[in-house]
């Protein structure tokens, strides 16, 4: 097993160990990473907009359930 495989195995073990937490504790973890997830999504939207023809630095059409309506499955 090389270094990368050992790293992945450690990661998998850690991730699986999170399963044993209570549901409320998992929800609290999700709440704690929320700002990071929002930042990632904002960056992704900005990249998407800047790649559109005719778009350069326009404000991103961010839609995280907080703005304009959207249609999606959860």
């Amino acid at each position, binding site marked *: 097993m090389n270094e990368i495989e050992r790293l992945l195995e450690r990661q998998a073990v850690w*991730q*699986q160990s*999170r*399963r044993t*937490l209570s*549901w*409320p504790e*998992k*929800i*609290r*973890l*999700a*709440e704690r*990473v*929320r700002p990071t*997830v*929002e930042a990632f*999504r904002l960056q992704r939207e900005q990249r998407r907009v800047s790649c559109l023809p005719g778009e350069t630095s326009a404000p991103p059409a961010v*839609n*995280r*359930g*907080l*703005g*304009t*309506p*959207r249609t999606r*499955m*959860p």
Partner: protein
Amino acid sequence: MEPVKEVAVLLNAMRDSGVVADYALFGAAAQMRYTEPVATLDADVLVAVPAPDRLDVLGPIYEFCRARGYEAEGESVRVGAWPVQFVPVFNQLTRDALAAAETADFDGVPFRIVGPTHLAVIALSAGRAKDSARVLALLESGSVTQEQVAALAAREGLSDAWTRFSLRFLDERD
């Protein structure tokens, strides 16, 4: 009060007052009851409403929330940190999921939640990459078996979707 507990209290009050006949959390926040934590920004709630043919089917829900200080933002209602999206049951699968929902305990507050097999089959029916990841996570957590998902998928007319999923993700895992 913690945000998700606040969501549970609001939903229970909504059901007790008859604004919704029933509700159940689904999506990523529900998945986490059975798997490891996953990143999510909102809470998705299946609802059965007393008057599903109304043009503004969610109107009474939004009014109920507004009367308690929870404002609509886009297609969600903000409850603390959580945008809560209400999804009226829209087919037999979601009706069955709501009927079979379990009552979980969230730090002392009852919280209706879609069970793992229905969560998996709803994800199967949606069919996006993150839905496939959800099915795999539920299977790998041991909260559902392939046989249970296959059986429910068959009952809901989703055998083809299950076959495609199996061929793509399960046969190549080992």
